[in-house]
């Protein structure tokens, strides 16, 4: 499976959303799926949620996937309440995705 891992920092918000979006798109442009490793990420803002969903849309259009790994309970709860959760598959570890 052609897949890359993107390691997210402590927060995904408007301060870094634009740069992270570009980096994710660079992977998706290579016709690869991507794993967003959110293990260290404790905060995702509105802008950050949109980075994730936009990535999903681009990947899906190419028949690829965006996998989320290590999403904290708090972030997942926010994603659930705001309607973003339903688009993603959630995993505990990068290895779990690759299996």
């Amino acid at each position: 499976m052609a897949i890359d891992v993107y390691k997210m920092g402590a927060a995904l918000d408007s301060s870094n959303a634009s740069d992270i979006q570009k980096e994710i798109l660079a992977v998706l442009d290579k016709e690869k799926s991507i794993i967003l490793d959110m293990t260290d990420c404790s905060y995702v803002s509105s802008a950050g949620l949109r980075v994730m969903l936009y990535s999903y849309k681009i990947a899906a259009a190419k028949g690829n996937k965006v996998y989320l790994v290590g999403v904290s309970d708090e972030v997942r709860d926010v994603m659930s309440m705001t309607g973003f959760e339903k688009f993603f598959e959630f995993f505990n570890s990068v290895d779990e995705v690759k299996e």
Partner: protein
Amino acid sequence: MQRVDLFPTHEYGGYKLRAGRPYPFGATVIGNAVNFSIYSRYATDCTLVLFHNHDKTPFLEIPFFKEFRLGNVFSMMVFDLDYENIEYGYRMDGPFDPQQGHRFDKTKILMDPYAKLIAGRDVWGKEPDWVNNYQYRSRVVFDDFDWENDLPLETPVNDLVIYEMHVRNFTCGANSGVKHPGTFAGIAERIPYLKKLGVNCIELMPIHEFDEFENSRPAPDGHTLYNFWGYSNVGFFAPKAAYASTGKYSMQVDELKNLIKKLHSEGIEVILDVVFNHTAEGNENGPYISYRGIDNKTYYMLTHDGYYFNFSGCGNTLNCNNPNVRDMIVESLRYWVTDYHVDGFRFDLAAILGRDQNGYPMANPPLLESLAHDPILGKTKLIAEAWDAGGLYQVGSFPSWGRWAEWNGKFRDAVRRFVKGDEHVLDDVKERITGSADLYASANRGIKASVNFVTAHDGFTMMDLVSYNGKHNDANGEGNRDGDDNNNSWNCGWEGESTDIGTNFLRHKQIKNFISILMTSQGIPMVLSGDEIGNTQYGNNNAYCQDNEISWIDWNNLEKNADLFNYFQKIIKFRRQHRALRYEYHLGHSDWRNLGMPDFSWHGVKAWQPWNTYNNLTQAFMLNGRYADSDGKPDDFIYVAMNMHWDMHGFELPQLPDGLKWHVFANTAMAAPQDICEPGYEILLDNQWEVLVEARSIMILVGK
């Protein structure tokens, strides 16, 4: 292609600018700029004030240059703003001359009237920092949301069963079982309950941004009284942040949209209770939030010497038929339909929307006409509370253009009186049961103009309606003077909660009588949330300020009053299964299609003889299902015998066409579970000629 008109032309304070687009008003993201646009007819100057989130002092104030002003609109684009992390407001300069209607004060920072996201009251009940001179803070919204294939449901209005609810009441109480009580997310968690009950529309009490701390004060027993219901708008475009569990992250817009999308996926519509009659700025002693400082004379109805008209009973009156305010209202409603997929609106004190700028009622109010004909709102439900606090009462005469429905307060009053045993109300009740033809048969309005209800947020809950003769509002701190005295209630022999089995049985029976009449009447039924489990407010009929167990629905009652829930659930299902109960236009009361019997007929204790007997408290009606055919398949006959008299009486049954038999669907005199059947599984009557209806009871039969 890149646009050629998105290059900065000016610079101020390190930010690049250019003249903005006057329209739309508000803050709009365009490319890498935010377009700020605000209207004021009388302001002489305007300054954009920018804060980092939550900061007390602004980091920058940018004046609108002369070339950024077109007509009476100030507009400017600011480039490369980190708009997720800023709050904005305006300073307006102009005359301070209250007698002439002007109250400009450039020391005040003002919220954008078109703000689609408002910060400052992000977490419910968190004491505000009153020293902060900018309390309600405009923000730029992320307005993209993935609706997938969702749209407003456009359920035919006559098919609706409306459930009126308050965001906090619904899930703050005991045993609600949700993870996020008192929020949009909490409602989403309870969608399976709404589905089980069978309602197909929720009507949310105000969810526009308001301040729960407006007029907050200690109650006699020390607990805090809030502006709990929220009938006092801060902004008309933003959802109440503290109603979102994610409000602390400013994600209330997404959380509400997600709720509506989920409700739609389960076939449940959303109607918003909207308050366009006044704002939270109060009278001349009130705070500067926005409108007063931006264009007082435009936004408010003022007396000739500059004081505020008070047709709302809340200190001021929005100047609804000023063309610019009218535009704002239309814009707001369009926004809630296009961006939130809202299915309809219930307009609080809507009679005010028909008053001219001097407060006089108009024959053809332009605002109401605009809404009736608006293309975006073309299939949106428009429901008026057709009265105001200034004495204008327009039930039956609200200007409608065939589009507006009304809360039918006359249905509430007549049915309450009939069920308690008032012998002077039968003729009125008959009008109400048949869709209030006296009110709505003209002007092409029809049955679909009548929203029928027995209880609503104003007044007693249904359990209290049968448990209290008088209101008990002491907890509101006004010496029991507030709230309506005209409740048409009856306590069934004991004031307040009772342990007497007979009293409680009678109370449950009266509740089943109410819901039976409501669900078998022509018109759109509305149920107050909690009534289906016998929710009490302990006799408080005006719980607008009670954010506590008085208002919150106690879900332990779902088990305690399981018979009520079962009855509500089945009779709602019955209504939704029978087209004969859901006509759009009034019936002929005649056999105009020559089908053997009239479409609708009244009966007394003798069939076909609807004479007034037993103190005018016995009456029956029959719907001929052959008039309610769909796809060539006729509905059943439905016969409802109402005995509100204090003795049992026999009702002679009208004879059915050959091959059909009477079956019992419901009998409120019976103890559960014999009181009501699963619709479609009604029990064949042994005696096809007569039924005995117990005192204060209703029987519903099906002819099939």
